[in-house]
């Protein structure tokens, strides 16, 4: 598996460039990944979404849908698009150290 250095740590990444193992994630890694995606600062809003995604992923093994995030994370849909412009779910999952969400069929 490919590795790369993020915030001083050598970390395994998957073919989409997302972390291969979500348990090595920390907030410094999140910030560096966010900057690469054009998000310079992680506000409380960003953190709410990130922690919601990580908690959901840990308990269900799945990344919640946009709809669920909009209803349950405390950040609504409009805000989600402001926080993570151009593809909020993909970006938020990557910054949260989770795999790329599978699109529905």
């Amino acid at each position, binding site marked *: 598996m490919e590795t790369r250095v993020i915030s001083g740590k050598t970390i395994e990444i998957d073919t989409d460039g997302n972390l291969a193992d979500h348990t090595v994630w920390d907030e410094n890694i999140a910030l560096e990944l966010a900057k690469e995606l054009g998000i310079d600062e992680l506000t409380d809003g960003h953190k709410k979404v990130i922690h919601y995604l990580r908690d959901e992923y840990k308990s269900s093994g799945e990344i919640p849908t946009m709809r669920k995030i909009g209803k349950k994370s405390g950040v609504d849909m*409009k805000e989600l*698009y402001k926080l993570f412009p151009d593809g909020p779910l993909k970006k938020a999952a990557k910054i949260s150290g989770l795999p790329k969400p599978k699109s*529905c*069929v």
Partner: protein
Amino acid sequence: MKKLVILGAGTAGTIMANKLAPLLNRDEWSITIVDQFETHYYQPGFLFIPFGIYTCRDVKKSKRDFLPNGVEVVMSVIERVEPEKNRVILSNNAILSYDFLIIATGSKITTNETEGLTGKLWQKNVFDFYTVEGACHMADYFKHWNGGKLVINIAEMPIKCPVAPLEFVFLADSYFTERGMRDKVDIHYVTPLSGAFTKPKASEILGNMLEKKNIRLTPDYSIERVDNEEKKIISYDDNEIDFDVLVTVPTNIGDEYVERSDLGDELNFIPTDNHTLRSKDHENIFVLGDATDLPSSKAGSVAHFEADILTENFIDAIDNRELRAKFDGHANCFIESGFGKGILIDFNYDTEPLPGKFPLPGIGPFSLLEETRMNHYGKVMFRWIYWNMLLRGLELPIESNMTLAGKKL
């Protein structure tokens, strides 16, 4: 006497009733099926109505004509299921108790999730084709339309028959070309997906077809509202798209009783084991068809393949044995591509649609991921197969689990 209750007499519920009725001993089992509507619609036919290929009359028959003798039919709205008490409450407060419950209440569109969708333009310039009413209104409108901006928008995934919106734009291209006005119609496909379709190979091939047919594609578009005054749709990130006619595929949800019974997820789809089709929360409840939360397509072919698997597993379950049959997510979809041609795709949870021949490897007669006349004839023939074989639970010459034979990797 043991009781099996089936909720929903659509494609999935009707097939299950027809498969299980001959297998269960009448002295030991009663079977009851519940539905609120008398009419069975051939839903794949809705797509053809706006273009005058089918009329509204071509897609309806009576549900009861397809249900087997000896099955009690109850026509009622379902108020709720009480899984802890093993019973279903109907809208008139009648109680149906069960030993086993099969849920097949499908999915439907809801127009409440997008602001402005049912504003003053609804069924005048804004149409759906997931209801017979919407499809028929659109057919009337297209007959006299002089052209303009035709926008097709999918509100969010998952939707029933994920290829239907693509078929819609292919057929629209064909229809307006044949009427000599294609140059006056700007067709624009606006989707929340990142491309024309979900799976990489199919998405590429179908994306190329959009381009070839001069259909504009806007991917990654998440609609927030419809502006009825200015005739435009607006996304959550403020991307505005003008329309003269908007064809919407609204949010799809499971039936409301699922929410009342606290059985489903945020879209009223029921958490179901991907392989055994048993409810994740209740041992004596099985779920199939569009009502599940499976990561498979919501499509009649899926319901049909699931019915084969569930029939085996149901017999195991009533004998208290381990469930041995495993559903693999198999879907098989004819995609009308216009001008008398069609495409066929065949895939499952793990294998994306691939090129090749189907169902006989190397022979066909159908071609996978390729536009042919034979594929179109397959789709046309399918309506007869649906009413006469599929709903009746008869064997079709297609395996329930997908095969790689005949496919090019």
